[in-house]
């Protein structure tokens, strides 16, 4: 599969759009900062307005970076799952890793960890708490190891899909048990976490998240040839020389790293993972993962940044949770795209 010039132009166009949206995201918020000032903050920090410098460096830039990471990671994870399971409805949450992270968070928040978490939440915002992130990482990691162990045993990707859904169901049930026996206050805290937030990831946390997401993306890109072969199904893939079990482990590993870390740091962010791969296929009209993976990164990032801009409710002081906006804004976009494409049965 080879890239055509049109696809290169489209990639470049998306890159340009990404830059614009990124700058717009930095400028929007309770305090509006002109784009010219943002450029100044970057290139000559000394002449810039110190308040704006602070807002951008400490709040908006980390948030925009988190949006970039989450946008890339979730979209690529979704693409991998849709190809691995040959299912257009698959997303990174399908393996149960996202709900695994949720279970860890629930465990900390709902089992009397209230004192510690409440303090942490007040200091850093809901998703900024180290305790919560650690718990989410640990339990997402545990679920990932379980999924990987099972994936090595199975012959069939379809079985893997069902088992992933079952694991997700079990972890959700455990979370519900905790919720049932908890105070309404604590349940509300947990509920806040499930709304997702890009704003709480700063400093060291951002570096850690970047590292893990970068690792996941590199593995994903390296596995693009395997993903291409899997388009024809497992039998053909094997006949072309793919060791299907190993490929499955590598792909699940990559998606788990992406989805697990992003959910742990930002809370669950739905919709991006399922929708962006479809948008990427529509725009680039290809099945080659060598093109689709970068395309998903760009589109996912643009989409999440746009959602973040909308979440600021321009002209208002309040901010809506990101998880609500992604579904509210994104779903109509996908419906329109798919209707225009007209070949809905192309799966």
């Amino acid at each position: 599969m080879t890239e055509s010039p049109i696809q290169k132009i489209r990639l470049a166009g998306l890159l340009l759009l990404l830059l614009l949206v990124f700058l717009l995201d930095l400028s929007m918020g309770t305090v509006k900062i002109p784009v010219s000032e943002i450029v100044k903050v970057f290139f000559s920090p000394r002449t810039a307005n110190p308040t704006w410098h602070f807002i951008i460096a400490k709040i908006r830039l980390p948030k925009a970076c988190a949006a970039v990471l989450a946008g890339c990671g979730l979209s690529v994870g979704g693409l991998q799952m849709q190809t691995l399971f040959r299912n257009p409805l698959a997303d990174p949450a399908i393996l149960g890793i996202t709900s695994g992270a949720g279970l860890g968070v629930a465990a900390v928040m709902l089992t009397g960890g209230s004192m510690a978490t409440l303090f942490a939440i007040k200091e850093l915002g809901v998703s900024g708490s180290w305790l919560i992130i650690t718990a989410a990482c640990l339990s997402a990691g545990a679920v990932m190891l379980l999924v990987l162990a099972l994936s090595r045993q199975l012959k069939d990707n379809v079985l893997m899909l069902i088992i992933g859904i079952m694991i997700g169901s079990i972890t959700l049930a455990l979370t519900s048990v905790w919720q049932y026996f908890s105070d309404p206050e604590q349940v509300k805290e947990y509920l806040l976490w499930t709304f997702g937030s890009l704003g709480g990831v700063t400093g060291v946390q951002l570096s850690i998240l970047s590292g893990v997401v970068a690792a996941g993306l590199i593995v994903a890109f390296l596995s693009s040839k395997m993903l291409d072969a899997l388009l024809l199904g497992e039998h053909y893939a094997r006949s072309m020389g793919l060791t299907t079990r190993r490929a499955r482990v590598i792909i699940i590993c990559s998606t788990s790293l992406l989805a697990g870390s992003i959910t742990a740091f930002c809370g669950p962010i739905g919709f991006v993972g399922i929708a962006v791969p479809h948008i990427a296929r529509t725009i680039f009209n290809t099945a080659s993962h060598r093109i689709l993976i970068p395309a998903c990164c760009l589109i996912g990032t643009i989409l999440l940044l746009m959602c973040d801009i909308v979440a600021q409710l321009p002209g208002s002081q309040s901010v809506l949770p990101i998880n609500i906006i992604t579904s509210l804004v994104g779903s109509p976009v996908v419906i329109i795209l798919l209707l225009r494409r007209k070949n809905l049965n192309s799966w």
Partner: protein
Amino acid sequence: MGIDPILLRTSGLQTGYHSGGKRIVVSGELPGLELQPGRLVCLLGPNGSGKSTLLRTLAGLQPALNGTIDVPGIEAHKPSELARKISLVLTDRIRGNNLTVQSLIELGRYPYTGWLGVLDETDKAVVEWAIGATGIGALRDRKAHTLSDGESQKMMLARALAQDTPILMLDEPTAHLDLPSRIKLMRLLHRLAGQTRKAILLSTHELDLALQVADTVWLLEAGGRLHQGAPEDLVLNGVFEAAFAEEDIVFDKEAGVFVIHAAPGKPVLLTGGGITFFWTQRALRRADFTVVTTPSPDVLYHIRITDHPTRTSWLLEGEGVNREYHSIAELLQAMR
């Protein structure tokens, strides 16, 4: 002239699979099987006789229960090694996932490309050759899932050819195809075997086509026994007939086809010749008459065929009838 090298050889092979800890045996211990360059082997057998299982086992998609499959040139049966020896056309449906015909065929170069799957000039040339050999150049920009069954089968064949392996295996490639497409595909495979010196193994239900193109037939019986030989030998020694033995179905050795309605019906004397005789005979058999060509007292009717270049007529005598008809339909109508 030297002896052809052997591309694949089995010994003591037994196929089957493991399900929930149980061994499910599909075939008994098979005789030694061999694939040679330039030879087309047809794997025949009734439904459920284990054709697909044998094919998948030989292709390395599932392990054998017993015995060995030896592919000279490779040691361990790693998928990456086998992929350069055996290419496959399976019955798995290709689902629409935005692949164009061209890029699907390019996937055939998978075993030769680097870690990103970028094609070099050699790869591109082989892909072009495969597209040309199967005659699907006009389809290359179409989406793979929009092709008809016949086009799709050619595309999958082109992908297998692009994989450039000495052995090509096809699992029921003619299923879902109409008769002209089946014949064209079989002819193409026959020609490819000769031109490319590939060993081609295909499983099929098309007995008559298989008899025409196969160099060797592997005939699997329902019980899992396998007979092999030149198709003509298998016809002459009755193996063919025995394998498909069913009530009311008889293998006509003269025509090389299976015929239904073997029960003897009322005798009819048919005189005449040529192609009209052949088709009249078929029609009468279908209508449950037994056709005889020598006069005898117990015949019900006597039909005389008169072949004119412009007009053919059938003269029907007997049972109080004596009339001329100008189509088989009218003739049969009168005899009912």
